[in-house]
């Protein structure tokens, strides 16, 4: 099932993949903050271009472009809504600066999407889980996350098996009008849900049998250690933030219109 393929993390080894997920997350949040600080096209465009070296270093260009393509519909919507709102609220007039403003809001959205996309494309679920475990998030959440990721391929296979079993009894999923088609999925959903409940029970038994809840001070086989690359990224992040704050307060940014 191709949908789940996207969630199945491919084990690629690049310097970006090996960076500490916590530092990467701080970086992404900083980009988020910078994007919000600015409403002008030039700095937002700079922020966008700033992500490109990461994308190329991590060799995730194709998937990254795919996520941008997915975001383009929403981006277009944002642009159109902004233009339309300004048009109707300022007495049916549309100035060039209005359009530029709408464009910059759209660009802000795109910068946000692309930076989160780079984060998720370059961080394996194992790393994410580990980062969650080492953070101050209660262990139950980190556990729920990693267990969910662990069982996604299992559930996908099971869904396929259930569909096969019901097709073998004459169920035709594609037949009928919309309502009939929705009802056709009942014989697939119910076994899937029942199976998920049974599975949870068995997992809970196994967890209890391996001392779940013995102590609040859980230890960990793995540990996230910061390396040179992580410190470098941290330095870059601080640098970007500092520059952004400085520019925001002390530098006046020209609009594209004024430059033309």
């Amino acid at each position, binding site marked *: 099932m191709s949908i789940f393929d996207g969630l199945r993390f491919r084990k690629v080894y690049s310097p970006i993949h090996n960076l500490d997920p916590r530092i990467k997350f701080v970086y992404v949040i900083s980009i988020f903050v910078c994007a919000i600080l600015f409403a002008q096209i030039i700095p937002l465009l700079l922020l966008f271009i700033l992500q490109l070296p990461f994308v190329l270093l991590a060799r995730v260009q194709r998937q990254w472009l795919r996520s941008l393509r997915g975001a383009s519909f929403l981006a277009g919507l944002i642009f159109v809504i902004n233009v339309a709102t300004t048009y109707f609220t300022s007495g049916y007039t549309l100035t060039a600066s209005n359009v530029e403003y709408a464009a910059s809001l759209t660009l802000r959205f795109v910068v946000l999407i692309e930076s989160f996309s780079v984060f998720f494309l370059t961080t394996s679920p194992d790393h994410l889980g580990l980062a969650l475990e080492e953070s101050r998030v209660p262990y139950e959440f980190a556990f729920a996350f990693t267990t969910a990721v662990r069982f996604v391929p299992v559930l996908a296979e099971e869904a396929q*098996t259930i569909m096969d079993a019901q097709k*073998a*009894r*004459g169920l*035709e999923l594609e037949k009928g009008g919309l309502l009939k088609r929705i009802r056709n999925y009942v*014989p697939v959903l119910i076994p899937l849900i029942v199976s998920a409940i049974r599975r949870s029970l068995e997992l809970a038994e196994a967890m209890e049998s391996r001392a779940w809840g013995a102590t609040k001070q859980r230890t960990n086989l793995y540990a996230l250690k910061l390396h040179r690359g992580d410190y470098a990224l941290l330095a870059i992040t601080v640098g970007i933030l500092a520059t952004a704050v400085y520019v925001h307060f002390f530098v006046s940014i020209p609009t594209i219109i004024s430059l033309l």
Partner: protein
Amino acid sequence: MIEAENVHFSYPNKVEALKGVSITIKDGEFVAIMGQNGAGKSTFVKHFNGLLKPTSGTIRSDGVETTKSSVASLARNVGFVFQNPDHQLFSETVEDEIAFALKNFGFEADVIEKRVTWALNLLSLTQYRKTSPFLLSGGERKRVALASVLAWDPKTLILDEPTIGQDHEQKEKLRQFIMQMQTQGKTVVIVTHDVEFVAESNPRVVLMKEGKIVADGIGKEILTNPAILELSSIVLPQIAQVFMKLKSLGFPKNIIDIYEAKEIILKTLESKTGK
């Protein structure tokens, strides 16, 4: 009748699961398809009712090429019972569960009623007619799944790993049930790695390994041939193991039935003492 000609099959993004499988299964045969996990057994039988279509080669079910037919129409003649009954059960009552396929195939209401009663009876489930299938035990749920497939009386019955998790009595009942289906003229295909179960039933045995058929013949011959069995990582049935170790004494090799074993041993020992 099922005819497979040089069937190749690859899953999307994966290795070739079937590498040129050819076989003919005539009406009324009882075939056991055996082999290690991953040999391609389940993949192969899923072609019989069109759940999977070959990447190259052809499969014909009663003369109809499976690529030219829908799963629903192929399923009319080929009933497939999956390994885990919980992958099928979803109805409020056992009755509804058994009627499900009949409704899908467009049977008339009175025919459905008759068929449901017949299937319930056949598998000793009549007292559970109005019970929720989820409240039944594991063995009972397996019978409900079986009943729901038998209800439309397909010519061919495929059972995928029917003996997993079953105790001795349940396996014995299953064996007798298969014999009953055979006497009714049905074609029965089971996918299994339970050697003892197959030894007791003595069907035609087809051994698969890495996507190919490596042996095809009488159960008795194949299950007592250690070279072939080692090739497909199958264990010899226990009776055959005994006779393997007595090879040097001139005992015949191809014994898997316990009664035959007893007779041969007694006869051979008597003749050795000239009693």
